[in-house]
Structures are given as C-alpha cells and as structure tokens.
C-alpha cells in the first residue's frame, strides 16, 4: 500500500445557493496519477481550487502527507508542495518565460540574482523532464502547448511534489496532448503525484492509475483504472436515471430547412473546435447532437446562429445562405425564421434585471405588433406576455416580475415561449433543460415534440444523453469537433457513450 499524499474529508463548498461540493471524501496515493472525472459543473475545479487555497471550504479537512493542514491561500498550498496548472493559464502575457516562472518566488528584492538563479534552475528542470522552452521568449508569442509547459515549469520551480492539472488537454491538439501525457508519466516516475481533472474518458483510461467520479458536486465513486471500463465510468459520470420517455409518433421529415456543409470553427485561442461538420435538418424532425460537454457544441451553435465567425463552410437556412463572417444580424436571422434558444440563458438568453414581459419579446421588439409608431406599445407587450405565461404555465404568473426572480425552469420557459411563439421554420435549441427541475423538463420536452409535429426543423444540442435519446429522430455524435457517427433513436446508451468518448466507430461496433 502506497503512502497517502492527500486526503480530503467531508469537503463542502457553496456559492450562494449552488452546492458546488457536497461532503467530499478523497484519498490520493503518492506517486500515482489520479484522475478526477465528471461533467462540466460537477464540481471538480472547485474541489481542486480548494486544495490549492484559491477558495476556502465551508466544511471539511485536508490532510497532506498524513498531517492535517490549513490551506487558506495559494502560498500555503505552494509551501506544502502543491502546484496547479489552471484550465485558463495564469500567465502574464507580455512577460518572458523566466519572469513568469519566478513571479511570486523571486527570493530577493532585486531581480538580478534571482533571475540568474532561476535561469540555471530552469535549465536543469528542462533537462530533467524534457520540458524545453526558451526562457527569454515572451508568453504571448508561444503556442498554447508551450504556455502550458511554462505553467508546469512554474509549479516544479516552486518545488511541487503534487501537481494538479485542470482540464489540461482542452486547449491542446491530440499530438500535444500525447506529449503532455509522456511528460506526466515521466513526472510520476520521478515520484511526483499527479491529479488530472478531465471530462474525457479516454484520457482517464490512457494515463491514470486511479479514478474518482464526481457528479453534481458529490463524489460518487473511486475505482482502480485497470479494473473499470469506459462504460462504467460513463454511467457513473452521467448517472443512471429514469429515462424520461416522451410520447411521440413517427417523424415525417419534409424539405431540408437547415443545411450545414463543411463547417469549421475556431475558438478565440485559435483551437479548432468544429472540424469540417456537415449535416442537415429537415422539416418535421428533431436532430439531436450528442457529445460530452466541451467538444465543440457551443461553437457549432454560435456559428450556425451567426454569433461566431466560421473559418470555412456554409450554413443554409431554407435555401438561403447564412452570413458566417461573424457579422450576421441576429434580428435578420430571426426574421428569416431561425429561432434560437441559447445554451446559456443567464448571459445570452435573458436580461435578468428586466421585467418578464420585456424578456418575453426581446429580440423581436421591432415587430409591428409590439410597436406604437416609434415607441414600444407597452400594453400590447404585457398582454402578449400574459398570453405566453398562460400557455407555457410560467410561474409565478406575473409579467411584471423581474426575470431574475423566476426559477431556472421558468426562466427557460420564458425563453422557449419567446422563440417558439414566433412560428419559426428552424428552431435551434442548446441545453434546453440545464439546471431545470424535473417537472419543467417534461413540459419542455413535450413542447419540442409539438414543434416537430408542426413541421419545424429542430436542432437539439444537449449533453444529457437521455434527453437526446428520447427526443431525437436522428442522433449525431460529436467528439473533438467532429461528427463521429449517426444513429437512430433506438441506439443503445452504451453505443452512444462509446462514440461520445471518442472510441473509434469500428471498435464501438464490436
């Protein structure tokens, strides 16, 4: 039995009403690579930020190397030999590699000697671990893979024995990721303990010794990697739940209303997030896009709805092209019949401080029925909002209430009512039931089926596999920005799970 490097006992943390971590116990053996897996928002990053002293736990105890410790600030964690590579790099962009490495660990008040010392120490680290970086290069000129290497060097320079990596491969190309894994193996051989946070099952299987699964802020299981499987982990991660079976008849697909051809999209860091995707959505069908969060679904939605610039490809809405230069006017797209329920209702879908009736028509406010000459027709807007409240059972039924005061499910209904009642041709829906209570989920699912039966083309993107399976007429699986397979609605969960984990289609068929 190996020594225990870190033991967490009963860690809990809340942000307002959100329980990010509930009573978490975790034991990490020294000299191993320990994976922590879970969906986005499962609380992995919060837990690690607590370990690194960035946040303080509300309750619980941390033991490092068998001793109970208090970690109030990152400097406490650093002193205990804990280093962290954050998901978003903590680097000063216009500093050199050397300056970034010594920041906070300069030693002396004057830089001259500390820089000289750091330079030789850095050379040693680079040699020992194969982490070559030009110490005088400026960070903003380096590719992300090298920037990450600087983060690792930073931690090692501070004498870290325990290295936490938060979603380290999210910004890396597959080749860079493989290189990173080799470095991690080597660090392990040197006796370092590594904690790898990820939502990618394949990485867990490839590199970890042990794996812990988190779901909705709780630690649901810990396994030896050799004795578990992708299927088991996926099940633990998503959580087996009663299938929300929705009553629906056969689809009767009509004309193609939305066609996506060769679409490629990069994120702001220049990483390809959507890679040459092509598909179409016909009138009267729901096409579901399944995938583990962070595999390019958000960027796909942004590109189709004209919010984000596409690198190449075309999107055709009812036979007419959509402007993909990033300059598309959302109002114009709405007019042409594309309704959009965004993934993030708080930041994109709603203006939370507004009254309900204002959000119930926002984006369509140029329509004549809401106007009275150059002015808004407040009476008409409120009457319209009351109608929607009735029809969508929005509670409390108060069109003058601030939107922020509605529950998540009711806020989502406000967005859905706004978009669906415009009688669009194409409805693009992102994560329709994220953070929505069970009752509202059922209602939302029913409304989506109704839209299909009215002959709308519905594109549904969701990380909830159950939702995809029960609603979709065709299921497309997205992994690492690519379409890796298409299945019918009767595809098994394990089959889709494997596709979502990036396991090759051939293997999945076996």
């Amino acid at each position: 039995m190996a020594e225990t490097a870190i033991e967490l006992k009963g860690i809990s943390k809340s942000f307002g009403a959100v329980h990010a971590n509930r009573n978490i116990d975790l034991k990490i053996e020294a000299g191993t690579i320990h994976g922590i897996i879970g969906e986005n928002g499962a609380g992995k990053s919060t837990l690690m930020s607590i370990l690194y002293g960035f946040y303080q736990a509300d309750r619980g105890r941390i033991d490092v190397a068998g001793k109970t410790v208090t970690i109030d600030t990152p400097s406490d964690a650093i002193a205990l030999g804990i280093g962290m590579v954050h998901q978003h790099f903590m680097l000063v962009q216009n500093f050199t590699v050397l300056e970034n490495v010594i920041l906070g660990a300069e030693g002396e008040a004057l830089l001259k000697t500390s820089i000289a010392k750091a330079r030789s120490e850095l050379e040693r680290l680079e040699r020992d671990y194969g982490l070559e970086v030009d110490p005088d290069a400026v960070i903003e000129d380096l590719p992300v893979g090298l920037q990450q290497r600087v983060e690792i060097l930073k931690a090692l320079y501070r004498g870290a024995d325990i290295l936490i990596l938060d979603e380290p491969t999210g910004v890396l190309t597959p080749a860079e990721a493989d290189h990173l894994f080799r470095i991690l193996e080597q660090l392990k051989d040197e006796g370092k303990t590594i904690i790898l946070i990820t939502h990618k099952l394949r990485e867990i299987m490839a590199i970890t010794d042990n794996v812990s699964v988190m779901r909705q802020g709780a630690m649901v299981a810990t396994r030896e990697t050799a004795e578990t499987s992708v299927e088991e982990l996926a099940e633990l991660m998503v959580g087996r739940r009663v299938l929300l079976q929705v009553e629906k008849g056969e689809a009767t697909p009509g004309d193609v209303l939305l066609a996506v051809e060769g679409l490629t999209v990069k994120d702001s860091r220049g990483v390809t997030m959507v890679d040459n995707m092509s598909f179409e959505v016909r009138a009267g069908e729901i096409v579901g896009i399944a995938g583990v969060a962070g595999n390019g679904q958000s960027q796909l939605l942004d590109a189709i709805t004209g919010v984000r610039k596409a690198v190449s490809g075309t999107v055709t809405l009812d036979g007419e092209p959509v402007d993909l230069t990033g300059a598309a006017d959302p109002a114009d797209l709405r007019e042409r019949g594309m309704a959009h329920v965004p993934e993030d209702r708080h930041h994109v879908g709603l203006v939370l401080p507004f009254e309900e009736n204002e959000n119930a028509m926002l984006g369509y406010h140029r329509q004549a029925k809401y106007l009275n000459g150059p002015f808004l027709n407040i009476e008409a807007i409120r009457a319209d909002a009351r109608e929607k409240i009735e029809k969508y059972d929005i509670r409390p039924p108060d069109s003058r209430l601030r939107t922020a005061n509605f529950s998540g499910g009711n806020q989502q209904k406000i967005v859905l009512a706004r978009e669906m009642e415009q009688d669009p041709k194409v409805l693009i829906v992102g994560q329709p039931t994220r953070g929505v209570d069970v009752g509202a989920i059922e209602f939302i699912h029913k409304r989506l089926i109704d839209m299909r039966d009215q002959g709308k083309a519905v594109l549904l993107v969701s990380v909830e596999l159950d939702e995809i399976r029960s609603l979709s007429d065709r299921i497309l699986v997205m992994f690492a920005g690519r379409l890796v397979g298409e299945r019918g609605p009767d595809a098994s969960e394990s089959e889709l799970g494997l596709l979502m984990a990036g396991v090759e289609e051939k293997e999945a068929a076996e």
Partner: protein
Amino acid sequence: MDFFHSLILVLDSTVRLSIPLLLAALAGLYSERSGVFDIGLEGKMLAGAFAAGAAAAVTGSAWAGLGAAMLISIFLALVHGFASITHRGNQIVSGVAINFIAAGSTIILGQAWFRQGGRTPSLPGEARFSSIDLPFAEAVRDVPILGEVYSELISGHSLLTYAAFLLVPFTWWVLFRTRFGLRLRAVGENPAAVDTAGISVSWLRYRAVICTGVLTGMAGTYLSLAQNAGFVKDMTAGRGFIALAALIFAKWRPVPVMFACLLFGFLDAFAIRIQGTPLPLIGQVPVQFMQALPYILTVVLLAGFIGKAVPPRAGGVPYVKER
C-alpha cells in the same frame, strides 16, 4: 546669439513647466501599471499644493509643506484605493470624485483659514523650495554656449526639479529591476496570475497607489512652493489630465514619460514666449489659440501619431476571483 539666448530661455521654462507634469505622470504610472486607473491625479496634486502652501505658511518650513502635501495626497490615494481595490468600485467615478473634493475643499479651507479669497499667504523665500545655483554656475556664465547652457538651463532650479529627473531612472529601475516592480507589472496585466502565485493582489495595489500619493504630493508641492510662492485656487489648471495624456502617449514607460512631459512643457513655454509677437507669414496669433495649442496637440498626438497605446491589460478592472 540673440536667437540662442531666447532658445535657452524657452528651454529653461520648458523644464519649469514640465516638472509638475513629470511628477504627476510618474505618479500615475505606478498606479496604472498596477491596474488601478487614476483620473484623480489632478485632485491629489491640487490638494497637495494646498497642503504644502498652508503648512509652509504656518510653519515657515518648505519641508513641512512637502510632508503635509505627501500626507494629504497619500490619504486621497488611499481613499481611491479603498473604493477601487477593496470595494471594487468604478475607478473613473472614484477619481472624478476626488477631483471634485479637492477643487472644492481647498477653496473652502483656504478661505476659512487664511481669508485671502482661497489663497494661502504669500511665502517668504525660506518657506519655499527656491532655486539652487550649482557650483561654478556664475564662474562659467561667460563661456560661450556651454557656459550659458550650464548656468541658465541646468543650474538654477529647485531641489524638486532635480529630484523629479532623478525619479525617472529610479522608476525605471524599480519597475524592471526589482521584485516589487515585477509584481507591480504583473498585477496590472493579470492579477489572477499574481493571486495564484501566492501574492496578495490588494496589498500590492495599495502599495502602488501609495507611491502615486507620494509623487502627486511632490507635484503639488512643486506648484505652490517652487513655481509659485503660495497656493492659488485651481492652480493645477488641468495639469493632472495633461500628465495622464503624457502617460498614455508614453505607453506607460518611464523614460518616454519624461520626453512626453518635456514636449508638453515645451509647447506651453513656446506659447508663452511668442504671445503678442507676430509670426512671419501668419501674423499676430490670438493668445487664446496659443494657450489652446498644447491641448490641441495632445488630442492630435493621441489620436494618430503614437500608434496603439495598449494599457495594462487589467487596467480599470477590479479583481474578483472568478468562479
């Protein structure tokens, strides 16, 4: 020779007019490099000038004046810090508020204490930072060119002038050669990096605004105890804003800040020099135009001639740990 003599005189007053700009701009440099924008340089300078004038009038000591100026302007800098660092308030609003407080309270207190219409009493020579004659200034006066440059241009300024010029290389050294400077620059670019490196973002920013307070206090003291013999209401006359412009113009770097301030000072000196003198081809230029020239040039220079001035990336943004 006559032309040369006039040139020396213009350059001499360039130096005099640049010093308050230089001190204020260096003051702003510390704060803004740490990510705290400071539009309240003007107010702190004004309050400093008043405190210096008042304290020197009461005690008869220029040094007491300087001390009082620094204290009051550090106090105002801390108010700005409290609002924008601790309470994460809007830095522009806080800075503007400080400007208003300084403009109003200096007049009220001045009138209440000295009853001279908001002025402080005119100071005798020993209560001021008077000009210092460097060694041999008189002896070499008659040496052509170099002698005149030495005795007129280089010698004969106040202690604060020499201090201001020494502060330029000193600031550069602090910024690029010390641990404090490294952290200061880092916190203005990416406070999260500083925080995760185990350094307190707030304490670092507070130290930066204290540096700002010290230097704006010196700038104010220069106005009331070196350039003038006492405080006159609104005597900063927008210099805090010009200093801010010089800071942007110099892209937040100490040595270019000095040159920018000298340029603005020169424009000012030139405007004063040619007042009432008809220019060849143009003829008589209205005084108002000449007075406006530095400001017009500021706008033009800032608008097009310096390329993109990239401020510290985290400038103006209060640091909140992201969830």
